[in-house]
């Protein structure tokens, strides 16, 4: 396969693939920093912008990518993957997407390396810029902050998609045929963002649909290799310095030739000689990973359609790619957003374990601490409640049973245990059978002051929360009135018949 490729083309191709892989990682990670990216167009080539695209290089990201590659290149059977995951402030994490750069065996022998492959790789990077803003993780990354952060992990080898959950979707960014194989870039992203938390306490389900934060603690391989997608400035760095973007004197060429193929060698003479770094290509033959990326979920699947080369291939050009180090940029981490927003976004289902029948009044009370994590009720004290006006919450009470913020006192209709009341001893109505189980509350409603008005707002609230039962609703009273009505009914009917003319006249006045 490689015998048809000239040594120069082979060298160029390897270099293109290497820098394409590095730039791919940069685009993906920068798209998950949580902020808008803006780079300037430049009419004059600088020699440092590979693929004629202004993509800044974050040294830490380049360092991680090179570490993952370990001198190898993405090739047949060797895929480079960038995994993006979300980690909450409580320590729960979830894989969001996996970007895969791989190569299959379909070769395009006729394609021109130094021009066509280069330009198509440039096009593929532009497509990557567009697609990284379309997957669901982009919106999540824009909202990262105190509640959660977005992490990335680069690995080389077999693609791992099992962490994306069921029903993950796949989008293909694009493919580029080369004489040694076809480069494929794709993304598999999670669609199911709701999980059950392993910290959920074993209590009864809340009567109301209080959202429970969902994450599952999973054994997480390579957790130590996760990196946050928020680039710190050099001043904030913990003293770790990374080498410049390129540790070799490699500049990308920006010169092309419009000469026909017969003038190839004369065109080469116009370029600067390459000064390749020592830490360049080093193939390690021992490798067991498969390159078969497509592990279809319920809706996954990447079509492996063959690609034919384009027809409008211009005259062949020579290229001696070299690249100079480019400057660093500082990205300010995104401002934090409200925790409620993420909870809305991610906690889409509020499934709860029902370990007991639903008609038990005792409610389980869940408070949100951070975006996605429950704390068991017995660990929640009033001191750490993040309720609004938590200071007004009662302090000495049985938490689950008497929390008026969750279950305000109902009217004391006795019959059904579902309608048991939570009111205090001040209630004047008949109380449910459960009233004796409750402790009197010192209810302090918001904005009330005890010293101004003769009547306390809380007292007012309690009284009108528990009005006396209407007499007409009382069974005994209604039963008696029914019997009386039946007895007097014939007399009333006779009276009405006598006065029927009056009634008719009255009705006519209404019309």
């Amino acid at each position: 396969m490689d015998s048809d490729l000239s040594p120069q083309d082979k060298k160029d191709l390897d270099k293109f693939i290497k820098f394409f892989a590095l730039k791919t990682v940069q685009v993906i990670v920068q798209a998950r920093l949580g902020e808008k990216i803006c780079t300037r167009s430049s009419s004059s080539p600088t020699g440092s912008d590979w693929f004629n695209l202004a993509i800044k290089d974050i040294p830490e990201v380049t360092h991680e990518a090179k570490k993952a590659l370990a001198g190898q290149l993405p090739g047949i059977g060797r895929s480079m993957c960038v995994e993006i995951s979300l980690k909450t402030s409580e320590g729960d994490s979830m894989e969001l997407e996996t970007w895969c750069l791989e190569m299959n065996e379909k070769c395009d022998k006729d394609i021109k390396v130094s021009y066509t492959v280069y330009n198509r790789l440039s096009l593929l990077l532009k497509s990557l810029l567009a697609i990284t803003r379309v997957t669901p993780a982009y919106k999540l990354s824009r909202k990262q902050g105190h509640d959660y952060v977005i992490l990335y992990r680069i690995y080389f080898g077999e693609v791992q998609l099992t962490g994306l959950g069921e029903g993950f979707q796949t989008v293909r960014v694009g493919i580029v045929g080369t004489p040694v194989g076809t480069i494929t870039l794709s993304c598999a992203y999670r669609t199911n963002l709701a999980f059950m938390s392993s910290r959920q306490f074993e209590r009864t389900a809340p009567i109301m649909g209080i959202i429970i934060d969902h994450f599952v603690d999973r054994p997480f391989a390579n957790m130590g290799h996760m990196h946050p997608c928020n680039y710190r400035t050099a001043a904030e760095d913990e003293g770790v310095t990374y080498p410049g973007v390129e540790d070799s004197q490699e500049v990308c060429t920006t010169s092309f030739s419009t000469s026909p193929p017969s003038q190839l060698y004369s065109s080469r003479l116009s370029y600067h000689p390459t000064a390749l770094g020592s830490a360049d290509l080093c193939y390690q033959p021992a490798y067991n990973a498969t390159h078969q990326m497509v592990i279809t979920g319920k809706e996954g699947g990447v079509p492996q359609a063959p690609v034919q080369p384009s027809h409008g291939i211009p005259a062949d050009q020579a290229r001696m790619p070299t690249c100079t180090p480019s400057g660093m940029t500082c990205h300010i981490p995104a401002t934090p957003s409200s925790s409620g927003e993420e909870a809305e976004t991610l906690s889409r289902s509020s499934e709860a374990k029902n370990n007991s029948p639903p008609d038990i009044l005792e409610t389980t009370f869940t408070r949100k601490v951070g975006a996605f994590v429950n704390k068991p009720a017995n660990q929640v004290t009033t001191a750490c409640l993040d309720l609004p006006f938590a200071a007004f919450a009662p302090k000495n009470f049985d938490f689950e049973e008497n929390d008026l913020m969750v279950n305000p006192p109902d009217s004391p209709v006795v019959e059904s245990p579902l309608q048991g009341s939570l009111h205090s001893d001040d209630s004047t109505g008949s109380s449910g059978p459960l009233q004796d189980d409750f402790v009197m509350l010192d209810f302090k409603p918001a904005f009330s002051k005890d010293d101004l008005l003769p009547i306390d707002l809380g007292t007012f609230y309690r009284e009108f929360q528990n009005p006396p039962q209407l007499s007409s609703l009382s069974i005994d009273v209604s039963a008696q009135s029914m019997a009386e009505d039946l007895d007097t009914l014939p007399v009333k009917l006779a009276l009405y018949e006598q006065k029927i003319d009056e009634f008719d006249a009255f009705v006519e006045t209404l019309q």
Partner: protein
Amino acid sequence: MNCRSEVLEVSVESRQVDEAMLALLHTILLHRSTGKFHYKKEGTYSIGTVGSQDIDCDYIDFAFVRVSSEELDRAMRKSVGEFKDALCNSGSDGVGQISLEFYQKKKSRWPFSDECIPWEVWSIKVNVVSLANEQERQICREKVGEKLGEKVINIVEVINRHEYLPKMPTQSEVDNVFDTSLKDVQPYLYKITYQITDSLGTSVSTTMRRLIKDTLAL
């Protein structure tokens, strides 16, 4: 060589027309723009660098990437603005189509003007909907965002088929392939046209009038 034609359809609210059109047109132009060419001796040329910029939509739950070029953005906004005005003022049911056509010029002898040969046409059909309340608008905001995401994926899929692209031109012919009027980037020669469909379904084509004018112009 036949011109490649792609059609995209979106249904949007009237206030979303601008952003939806800009998102799709800029996504296409991102892929159909290169850096500025600088020709040197010995038949070589160098290519400038294309920068990119994230744009957040105000009326749609969507973000897109465009080429960092204020001139190109102004040109797009002008065309999209004209399209939107025509759409809103036509008295039609709010159905229209805006087309981004990439073409090459072919020199002709006098007295004939240069021939414009399209090689790729992107048509975006727009259906303007009216919504009754804020809740529907909020839903529409998200739905249109998802739809635009699908359209971006469609665009990328078509472009990465690597079908016909004009040959890289010599210095004397660069203006026949690329729009060299911009300072910082160099898109392929393009033109934007639109047509509004009135309520009877016949096309009130301002485009045709323009094309006829162009053809007759000597």
